[in-house]
């Protein structure tokens, strides 16, 4: 199964039903919504059921996100808290159950953004601890309803940290939405990071990126699929059962590893892994890879053409 993230491809239509048609037209069989609220802002059961019926008729798998889970950042979860009458956990449980009712049993979530890692409000380790504690409290609910939340390997978090959260909360209720281009932002080698998380991976986000010497260290450059340094055959071989989703990124990130403060914020980093990521820059020709971060649409064709060449 290969689907596509709805939110970042403006070529797709406006209503969920139109998007489902578009997915089929592209030859894909899955549609991933950033949040269940994009299917129905009020979580209306009838509206959700109608979309589910249309998806089933077209043979398209639906999935969706559960938004942000980070007690230190309530402003990002205001919509979900409102669903719970101001109680974030109650709202999240409503959202998860609404998704569960239409077969969305592995919703993914984000913990933060790049800036959170370097914030003092509170420090990143505290944010991780609070998030872990919240998820541990949610675990019985997840277990009871057969829901597995997938932590997205987002730009702010390392594979080491995600592995520790899963170990603390339980691998029966937490999994991984593997987004390998983001490992580069943390100075992690995508293949090695994938190896560390392999048994938890339920969902994979397809995109490609290169690494350049730039700024105060390195820069991640998003590029057309197949022209970057992500070892997709190697990664997919480690997660053969995972669902696959095209997810074309826009974020531009530097990895200023010459900056001692930045390095201190990467306590799990090893010389071998930093060396591997710097080494990736040697595999990126200065002129050969052109950055297309600002315009993800031009990347759709290369990735669609590549799908047939990926290992099954």
């Amino acid at each position, binding site marked *: 199964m290969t689907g596509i993230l709805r939110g970042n491809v403006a070529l797709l239509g406006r209503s969920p039903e139109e998007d489902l048609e578009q997915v089929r037209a592209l030859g894909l069989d899955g549609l991933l919504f950033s949040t269940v609220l994009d299917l129905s802002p009020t979580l209306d059961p009838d509206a959700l059921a109608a979309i589910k019926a249309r998806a089933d008729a077209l043979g398209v798998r639906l999935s969706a996100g559960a938004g942000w889970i980070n007690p230190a950042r309530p402003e990002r979860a205001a919509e979900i808290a409102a669903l719970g009458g101001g109680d974030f956990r109650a709202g999240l449980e409503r959202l998860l159950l609404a998704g569960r009712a239409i077969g969305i049993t592995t919703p993914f979530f984000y913990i933060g953004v790049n800036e959170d890692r370097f914030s003092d409000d509170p420090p990143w380790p505290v944010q991780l601890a609070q998030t872990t504690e919240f998820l541990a409290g949610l675990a019985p609910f997840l277990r009871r309803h057969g829901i597995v939340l997938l932590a997205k390997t987002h730009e702010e978090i390392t594979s080491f940290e995600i592995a520790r959260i899963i170990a603390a909360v339980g691998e029966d209720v937490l999994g991984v939405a593997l987004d390998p281009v983001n490992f580069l932002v943390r100075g992690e080698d995508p293949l090695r990071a994938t190896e560390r998380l392999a048994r938890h991976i339920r969902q994979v986000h397809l995109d490609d990126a290169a690494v350049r*010497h730039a700024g105060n*260290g390195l820069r991640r450059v998003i590029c057309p699929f197949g022209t970057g340094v992500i070892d997709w055959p190697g990664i997919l071989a480690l997660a053969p059962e995972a669902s696959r989703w095209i997810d074309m990124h826009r974020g531009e990130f530097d990895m200023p*590893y*010459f900056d*001692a403060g930045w*390095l201190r914020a*990467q306590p799990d*980093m*090893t*010389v*071998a892994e*930093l*060396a*591997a990521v*710097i*080494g990736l820059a*040697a*595999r990126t020709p200065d002129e050969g890879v052109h950055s297309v971060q600002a315009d993800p649409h031009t990347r759709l064709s290369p990735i669609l053409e590549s799908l047939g060449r990926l290992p099954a």
Partner: protein
Amino acid sequence: MRIGVDGRKIPEAARRGPVASLDHARQLGMDGLFFRTVLDMSPTLDAGYLAEIRQRADALGMYLETGLGKVNPFSTPEAPELRLIGDGDIVLGFRRMMEACAAICCRELWVATANYKAAYTGRFAYDRFRTDVSWPEQLEATARFLKKLVPIARDLGIHMNLETHEEITSFELVRLVETVGPDVTGIVFDTANVLQRAEHPVWAARRVAPYVRQTHIKDALIAREGDGVTFQLRPCGDGVVDFRAILPILAKANPTLNLSIEPDESFADRPRVSPRMLIEIADPAWLAGHPDLTVEEYAAYMKMVHDYAGRIAGGEIRDHASYAAWALDAFLYDEAVLYIRRSAEHIRGICKDLALPLEEIGA
């Protein structure tokens, strides 16, 4: 501190011999010579001739430094003269060399752990990557051999100073000195060799400073090649080594340290194909062989490489290929002398700027 030059690599060293090389060095404005082994001065340990070298140095007001040889039992077979001078007994050979050195008041003596293998490119040029005997085994054997020499050294008031040679890290050297004893061992700090172990010269200087008793003052280009970097000798000031940061560290720890410039050898003296010196800093096997390397120092090293790449790109510094091509034709006597003079000027200038305790003949 005084500024001198390597006694083996000063131009025309072999042709002129040690005594005339002292005069030559003085003509070039050098205040000392550092012959890395006493056998370089006299292969037979001729006491009369060694005394003549000492007298000439004294007459010129120059320092005279020397040394012994390799002290890694897995490397000494590559230097059969060490055993020969002991008539088959290498410990006796070292005793004879040490006594000969003490007799001419040379008690700070260079030693080193292996030989660079120019036939190979990449990690096998360095004996820490030997596949027949591991580097930890070589280090242990080195410590054991040095301990056999300790009573002799103590008796004669000698320090055996281990060089930050190409194959060894400053971490390992500090441990060796602390294992064998700082009363009889020390470090010859080669300011550029540490680059070949991905050590930042300033960070290495901080580590070794308490034990540095002799030096090889040297600079080098380090430039990215693939996912590794290449190394090429350059006059001091033209390479990556930050002497402005290093010299105060050394001076503070040892204000009477001699600064011996180790120049590149002229192609007239030693016709050769310069080896391509590749440091495989991203290779997993190479990295596995550097357990003391930290993320912070590795990052600082890469920043140094990055900043230097900017100097090359800006045209201030010649790149590896064009310098190598130029040197092959042009690096003869005159250029080799210029290399020494430029290096000395750079070091002298920093010492003056920073008011470091530099002594100069006639100054």
